Structure formats: structure tokens, C-alpha cells
């Protein structure tokens, strides 16, 4: 096997002193055996792999990506600031060209944390990729970014944060939402009115194996990335598609993960889920690190790996092939969809019911988007949770047209306390965050 080696940064932060609760899957032990394997393989001694200490994200960093209720401090602990900080460190090292790519092997994860955050859902409090993306946009002037979420669960948080952003392409491949938390992520979820096609969902049937994942990669993800032409590619590298994962039902292997990473060639990978901490994570992580570094990963195999035992059925293969075609047809038609979906409306509304499984909070949201042909559009959200908190948020997109800006500023000015605990103004373009 001939390889072109790359300089890879590794931000390893296993948070050995933090867990959600004593027997929770997202626990201290989670990256213990991964650390063992990484150290035993001597990966940190390789000339082209460098380990970096994670930075600590600030509340300001979080406020660029989220509307935290009541504020960022209340819904995060130090562990969240470090795991988001680790993702930011990965981005810094890549964008300052200290390394060619980087892997933030950090916990706790983040991809279920949505734009408005009242607490923790799906083991996530804040969306570490989104915090990183907003950091990148502010500090490195990068506009077009793609996130490819390869966690087994739908990356609903990242999707929510960038639902109306035509410049951030969010692709999520995951176990079908009819069979797994968070029960969402179907192919018709395709982005907000001004960002159709910037959200791509690829639900996969349970028992999908390497073949299916790689088919989707080759026939959906890579062609769409080619069209979209992002300046950087981020991989939300969840590892719970593995055949041994205890809380999901897929059949992906360590070798498959490494091959996927090699083909996708992300600039930054960020660990998300993955709870087969002994049988999968040590091998999947070593595989991904080697693939990113351009080194031979062919000898990375789970001790019990038997491709015949986990191979997907013909039905699954056929299903995935046809779904892939369907998604590509939608993608090719994305510019024509707006007229059909939006019609002549000036504003588009959607209401959402969000359950925070980790913290047991229920939230009702009404999102209003200004239909706009010049930018992602002004977004306004009214949100009420059963904690008794009710808020309103005005959000201007990363690139904001004068009309949306004028409207947004006007709405924010006119809104006054009364029924709301807080009113937020998040200007992603000018990096302004105001709470009243």
C-alpha cells in the first residue's frame, strides 16, 4: 500500500474526571481503551502526528453558535468548554497550517445541541462543531463549510443551527430515524427556504455494513461536495455505526471508518458518539488517525472482525442504491424547489417540539424566516420550555443582506420584555450578541 503522508494534529481530551452520571454511556471510561491503543501503537511518536493540548472555549465563542437559555454559563460545565475548545484548537492548527488536518478526539460530544439550548439533549449541551465553525468564520474569513456527520444518530443539532444557512452544508448519514433517537433526519428535511439543499439527510436501514456506507459516500456525499465546493470539510466522526455498538444497530467496521475518512479527507474531524468502548473505539480511532495521517491502516482490525457475519442483505443494498439516486435528483433540483415550497410568502414559519432527553426538558418553538434571495434570511425564534423560561431571539445570518439586517434590527428594537424572560440578538455577520 502506497500512501502520501500528511501532517496530522491530534487533540486528545478524554476528560477522565467527568461523566453525565455514574452509569451513563457518556462516561469517564469512554476513551480509556482508545488512549491505551493510541499510546501502545506509539502513534504520538510518529513524525507526522502531533498532539496538542486543547484550549478552553469562551462564553463568547458559544454565543456565536447558540442562544443559550438563560445564558451559556448556566448550561455548560468546564468539560463542555474544553471539548469545544479542543475542536477550536483543531481548527486553529489546520488553518494556521501548522498541520494539514486534525482530529479532535474529545468528549463530551455536541451534535444534538440545537440553536436554542435550554439544557442537554442526546448527551450534548453545546454543539462543539458549530462553536468551532463560528470561530473559524470569525477568525479566518472562511465562508463555505461542509459538515459531514457520520455518527449513527441524526446530527439534528448541527442541522438546526445551520438550517437556514446556505453557506454551511450539513450532510448527515445515520440509522433511520424510525428506528433510533432522535427520530428525525429524513430525506425531505432539506434545509430552510433560503438554504434548500444545504441540509442533506441520508437515513440508512439498520444492519447497513461497510458496503452501504461507502456506496453513499461515493454516490451521494462526494458528488455533492464536488458541487458545493466547500473551503473546508468537517467530519462529525461519531463511531456508533460500529457493529459492536451497544445502543445502535448498524454493521460498520473500523476498516470501513478508516476508508471513509481517507476518501472524505476532512480537514477537521471531531469525535461525536460511539459507545462500544472496548471492542470498537480503540480500533476505529486508530484507523481514523492513520487514515488522516496518510499511513497504512490495513492492519487495523477488530479482533473479532468477520465481514461475512456482518454483511448487509441484498435488500439493504437495493434500498440504499435507490435512496442515493433519489437524493441526488433532489440535489440537482435544489434551485427549482424554492418556488414550489415557498410560493409568494414573505415569511416562512415552522413549529418544533423539542425534547431534552438528558435533562428531561420539553420545549416548544416557533421559527420564522424571512424569505430572501440575497442571503440566508433573518431568523426569529420564539421558544418556551417547561422550565418556565420563554425567550425570543433575532438572528442575522453569517452573510446578511441590508434588508434582512434592517428588519432584524427593527424587530429587536421594538421587542420589549413583557412575556419573555430574555430577548436575544445574534448577528453572525458582525459578531454581535446582545441580550435584553
Amino acid at each position, binding site marked *: 500500500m502506497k500512501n502520501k503522508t500528511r501532517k496530522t494534529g491530534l487533540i486528545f481530551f478524554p476528560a477522565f474526571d467527568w461523566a453525565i452520571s455514574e452509569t451513563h454511556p457518556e*462516561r469517564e471510561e469512554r476513551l480509556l481503551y482508545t488512549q*491505551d491503543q493510541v499510546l501502545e501503537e506509539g502513534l504520538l511518536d510518529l513524525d507526522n502526528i502531533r498532539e496538542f493540548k486543547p484550549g478552553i472555549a469562551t462564553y463568547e465563542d458559544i454565543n456565536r453558535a447558540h442562544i443559550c437559555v438563560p445564558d451559556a454559563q448556566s448550561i455548560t460545565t468546564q468539560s463542555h468548554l474544553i471539548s469545544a475548545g479542543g475542536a477550536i484548537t483543531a481548527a486553529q492548527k489546520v488553518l494556521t497550517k501548522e498541520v494539514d488536518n486534525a482530529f479532535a478526539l474529545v468528549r463530551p460530544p455536541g451534535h444534538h445541541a440545537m440553536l436554542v439550548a435550554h439544557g442537554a439533549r442526546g448527551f450534548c449541551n453545546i454543539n462543539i462543531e458549530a462553536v468551532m465553525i463560528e470561530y473559524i468564520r470569525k477568525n479566518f474569513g472562511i465562508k463555505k463549510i461542509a459538515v459531514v456527520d457520520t455518527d449513527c444518530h441524526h446530527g439534528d443539532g448541527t442541522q438546526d443551527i445551520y438550517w437556514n444557512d446556505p453557506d454551511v452544508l450539513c450532510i448527515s448519514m445515520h440509522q433511520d430515524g424510525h428506528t433510533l433517537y432522535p427520530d428525525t433526519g429524513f430525506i425531505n428535511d432539506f434545509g430552510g427556504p433560503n438554504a434548500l439543499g444545504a441540509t442533506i439527510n441520508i437515513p440508512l436501514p439498520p444492519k447497513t455494513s461497510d458496503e452501504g456506507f461507502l456506496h453513499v459516500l461515493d454516490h451521494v456525499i462526494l458528488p455533492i461536495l464536488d458541487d458545493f465546493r466547500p473551503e473546508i470539510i468537517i467530519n462529525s466522526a461519531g463511531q456508533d455505526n460500529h457493529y459492536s455498538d451497544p445502543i445502535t444497530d448498524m454493521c460498520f467496521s473500523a476498516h470501513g471508518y478508516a476508508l471513509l475518512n481517507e476518501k472524505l479527507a476532512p480537514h477537521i474531524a471531531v469525535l461525536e458518539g460511539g459507545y462500544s468502548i472496548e471492542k470498537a473505539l480503540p480500533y476505529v480511532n486508530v484507523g481514523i488517525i492513520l487514515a488522516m495521517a496518510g499511513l*497504512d491502516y490495513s*492492519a487495523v482490525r477488530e479482533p473479532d472482525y468477520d465481514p461475512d457475519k456482518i454483511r448487509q442483505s441484498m435488500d439493504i443494498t437495493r434500498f440504499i442504491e435507490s435512496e442515493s439516486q433519489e437524493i441526488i435528483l433532489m440535489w440537482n433540483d435544489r434551485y427549482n424547489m424554492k418556488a414550489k415550497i415557498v410560493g409568494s410568502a414573505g415569511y416562512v414559519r415552522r413549529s418544533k417540539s423539542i425534547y431534552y432527553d438528558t435533562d428531561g426538558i420539553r420545549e416548544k418553538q416557533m421559527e420564522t424566516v424571512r424569505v430572501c434571495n440575497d442571503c440566508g434570511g433573518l431568523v426569529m425564534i420564539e421558544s418556551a420550555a417547561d422550565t418556565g423560561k420563554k425567550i425570543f431571539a433575532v438572528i442575522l445570518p453569517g452573510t446578511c443582506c441590508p434588508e434582512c439586517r434592517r428588519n432584524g434590527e427593527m424587530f429587536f428594537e421594538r421587542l420589549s420584555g413583557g412575556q419573555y424572560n430574555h430577548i436575544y440578538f445574534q448577528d453572525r455577520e458582525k459578531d454581535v450578541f446582545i441580550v435584553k
Partner: protein
Amino acid sequence: MILGIDVGGTHTDAVLVENYQVRKKAKVLTDNSNIMASLLAASQNISLQENLKNIKRIVLSTTISTNAIVQNKIDRVGMVLLSGPGLSPATLKSSTDSFYVSGYINHRGIEIKPVIEQEIKDTGEYFRNENIQKIGIVGKFSTRNPQQELSVAKILRNNNRQFSLGHRLSGHLNFPRRIATAYLNAAIDRIYNDFVREVGLFLREIGANIPVYILKADGGTILIDQSISYPVQTIHSGPAASIMGVLATTAIKEDAVALDIGGTTTDISVFADGAPLLEASGVTINGNKTLIRGLYTKSIGVGGDSIICIKNGEILVGPLRDGPAAAFGGTYPTLTDAIIVLGMAALGNPQKAIAAIQPLAAQLKTDIISLSQSILDKAIAVITSNVRKVLSAINNQPVYTIHELLEGKTIRPQSVYVVGGPAAAMAPSVARSLGYPYHIPEHSEVTNALGAALARTTAEVTVLADTEKEVLTISEEGIFRKIPHTFSSAQAIEAGKEALKQRVLRMGASIDDLEMEVTEVQEFNMIREFYTTGKNIRAKIQIKPGLISACNIG
């Protein structure tokens, strides 16, 4: 009294120490072809015979192992490697005498694939045909379960073969480093044992029956008889002796930096609260990354004999050297010559120093004094910028807990200790540039011998208790035994301390020098399917490098 001898590549130094005081000191040239002659010569110069009856211990530091490796005077080694899945063997350094065989232990210490006896026997046949008698056996995760390394050794055992088993050399994880460590240990086995024999002859020659210790890379001592199976531990004992020498000649209790400015290089070392720092993963020697516990040093190519040249109008100091300073009859202008020109050292022949610096001054259209000052400034700038880099790297080492990340110790040096030939000339400016005061220890010409003389015995054990499997492993001591499901962290530490005590006493530690430090302890609940099934407890316990306590100073 203690006799400390440092057998360096150029000089052999000896000191007689009593109550921390230097009674006698001597420096002779090393005869590399006859170590015993060098030992005898140094001994004579300190009137060893008169003091012999008062000497309680002899400690040697020697470059024998380092030189064997650096000069490639090593034996052919057969390597049997049990690698299992992971990094491709093609990525690892290996020779035609390396064999990857079946067998695999996983990260938990569970045997996944067995050793195949016939395969090992075939390998043994190759070693026999090739007349290879030094054999390294290394398994991935063998520190978690040494059984496979032991069974391979059992199959290969015969009278002529010496084995280096990976798990006995270090308890730390890192398969490629474990391979390099076992390889080097086997490769220098013969040359080191020849040296030990010479030391035996020396003792017989002087008629002494005194325990002899060898200084290890981590600045600790080991009885010479105990060192013969693990010669690789004695690499880098020169730099280790120098650091221990600083410790022995100063009352260092604070965070500090030490500089050993030699002929070719300047070695930077770092102290935290008065204790010398260890390499995080292990010593690197001649490009080989090993698991050998060693004192941290960073060597940079600036020393007294560094050649000065001008490139694109810029002054360069080192890293090349070629013989002594011009003032001592060398061919090229050196840093030492600049120091002599500045009148900061009355050494050698000043005329020759001036003559060597003159052409460079002409080239830069300046006078020799200004140029010499610029040379000195440049050398100091290189050294201090490297000191800052070292400190920044140490203070930015990754950590794995929130507690350490937020509250971990930061090294903030309060002083710089400078030893070596140009110490007096350079220390004031170095200190000014770094922003903390300097000290030049006494007896700096025999620092190494003194450091060796006063170093205590050190060791480390790595404990892993897996209460789900009910197994306790202490790799360095070959302990692999059953424990009850209820085994606790406290019990793991206690078992580790007992193993460490046995280990250092066997290595020759005094009962007064058993001050142990738990450097790491972690306890993880093991959760399977939402139930706690056991605990995974990890601990590292060490006797850290330091001086022997006063009560046993002869």
C-alpha cells in the same frame, strides 16, 4: 565515604565524598581501550588506597552503553514480535532478524490469539543457524499480560541464549518503543557485561570488597550485579550524572533550569520544586525512541568548541565542532576563543584566539572585541530561546483530566544553574536574558562524579488492577495474579508500594531512602450494558531521583 567515578568519553573524573563534602577530586584522560586503566589512574590521583577502608560504596557513571549504541558496536539481535492488529509492521523499524509471529493480547490484557509453538520453534531454528544468541521478545500490550512473552521465551530457552523481555523493561504502553528498548538491551548485553567484568577486575586490583553501583539514565543508582540483565538502563548516564551533580552541589528546592555548557553541546534540564524532570515517554538515543526512564535533557548544538562562521552576514555559532578552540591549537575560531578575546577567561593561548577571530572581524568590517561580544550574545540568544522553548513545551504537555487542565502545575523557574567550561563567562548574560538569577555550583569540573556519588536508588512500578477480570498486573516485577472483585485503589497502591520496595531493595537502595511518590492514580468504573461490572484501576509509583539521605553517607 563514597567514591564517585564518571567515565566519560574524554575524561574520567573521580571524587571522594564525606558528609556531602568533597574530600578529594581528580581528572584523568579516559583510555577507551582500557577502562580499568582509567579507573586505576583516577583512583590513584585521589589516594584511594589510603581511604579504602572508609569507603562504603562506589558509584560509577559510564558512557559505555551510550557509546556502544552511538558507535554501533552492538550485537546482532533476533527479535520475536507479537503484534496483533494495529499499526502496520511495515511502518515499524525492523531488520531481517525480526519475526512477527502469531499471538495477541488486547488492551485489557486478554489473550485474543494464542502463540503457535511450531512457529516459534522455526524462528529459534533460524537464530541457531545464524548463530544469534541475543534475543528480544516483545508483545503488544505485554505490560498488561506478560504470559505470551514468557511462553515464547520458554520455547526458545537454551543455555547460550540471553533474552530481553519487553514487559520487564518498562510498564509503560508503547509497542514500538518497547521493541526498540528490548532490542537495544539485547544488543549491548555483551559489551556491557565485558565492562562489568572489568569493574570486577578493578575491584580485585585495589583489593576492595565494596558494593558498586551504576548510575542509570533516570539519575538513580543500581547495584552493578543487578544491572547486568538490564544494561540499557545505563544509557545517558553522563547527562544524568551532570543533573544529579547540580542537585548535589546546590540547595535547589525551587523550579529551576540547569545548563551544562560543554564542548559540543549545551544540555538543558529542568527542575520542578527541586526535583529533576523525567522524559515523558522515555529516552531517545541515536534516533531510537525507547521506554527507558531518563532525566529530561534537551541538547542543543552550542558549546565552547562550536565553530563560528559567517553566513549571509549573520554570525552562526555551531552546531559543528572540529577539535578544540583555536586558543588550544584548534583550526577554527570557536565560542571559547571569543570568550578569551573578551578577557572573560584566562585560558590557552590568547594570541591564537585573536588570530582566529581576526579574519571574521575583517569580513564583517568590525573589530575583534565587538565581534567577540556579538558571538557571545548570539550563543546566549540561541541558548535562552531554547530554554524558553523547552519550558513552553513542558508547560503545554497534553493532560487528560479537567482538573489537570485547569489547575495543573506550571513550571516557573526561579534560578538558572550553569556548569561546564564557559559557565562563568556566560552565566551572567544568560541569567539576564532569562530574567532570573544564576548560580555556578562548586566543583563544577567534577560535577558528574559527584552527582553519581550522591544519587539514590530509583525505580518505578506500573500497577493495573482490573476487578472485572480479577487480575493485578505489575509489569516491571512480572507480577500477574488474581485479586478479589472488591480490590480497591488503596489496595492497588499498597500492592504497588510493596512491589516497588522489593524492587529497589534488590537494586541496592538503603532502607532510609524509600520515599515513594504516587505519580498517577486513576480509577474507572467499568460499565457494561448500563451496569457497573468492575473497576479499572491504574497507578504509577516511583522513588524519584534525588540524593541519598544523610544517615548513610559514609
